[in-house]
């Protein structure tokens, strides 16, 4: 799973029906900007955990949900620059 930062919502009116009404968020993973389905209701600026592959589909709703990256948790507090 990845630790990402939520940048802003992604608005896409013309999209496939499979996504239904779920919110999409633009998240930043290092220098890459990705799009994740928001299953927990995060706001821009949050540090979140994103899950990929088939787990992303179950986390987003059902086995047939067409997502390959889903936000599954909001981290309480996270310091990106602290050395682990």
């Amino acid at each position: 799973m990845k630790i990402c930062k939520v940048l802003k919502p992604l608005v896409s009116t013309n999209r496939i029906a499979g996504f239904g009404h779920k919110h999409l968020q633009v998240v930043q993973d290092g220098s890459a900007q990705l799009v994740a389905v928001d299953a927990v209701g995060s706001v821009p600026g949050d540090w979140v955990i994103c899950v990929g592959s088939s787990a992303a589909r179950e986390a987003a709703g059902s086995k047939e949900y067409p997502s390959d990256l889903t936000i599954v948790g909001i981290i309480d507090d996270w310091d990106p620059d602290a050395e682990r």
Partner: protein
Amino acid sequence: MEINQVVGTLYCTERIEGLRHCSLQILKDRKGNLLVATDPVGVRPGNWVFTVSGSAGRLAMDDPKTMTDLAIGGIIDFWQPKQVAKPDSSSGDEQPTEQRDQAA
């Protein structure tokens, strides 16, 4: 799911039965590499789209038996591509690149 830009349509008459009659689009990703994705939405060249990869890409298609690993999920209403961060840039690159160059 990544954000890509549509370059144009890929015409491919000789194809396996699994690809059926899907329209194939050529996409350009962040680093400039070209990808091919199946298109259930109906995009035009120049559109910024987000794509679904892996087995979820098959579910994004109308017929989940379509043999694709990358499908277009939808057209982004408004997208401002930021300049590609240089590989040696620090992790947080919110500040504009010019300002960081003087500091380096």
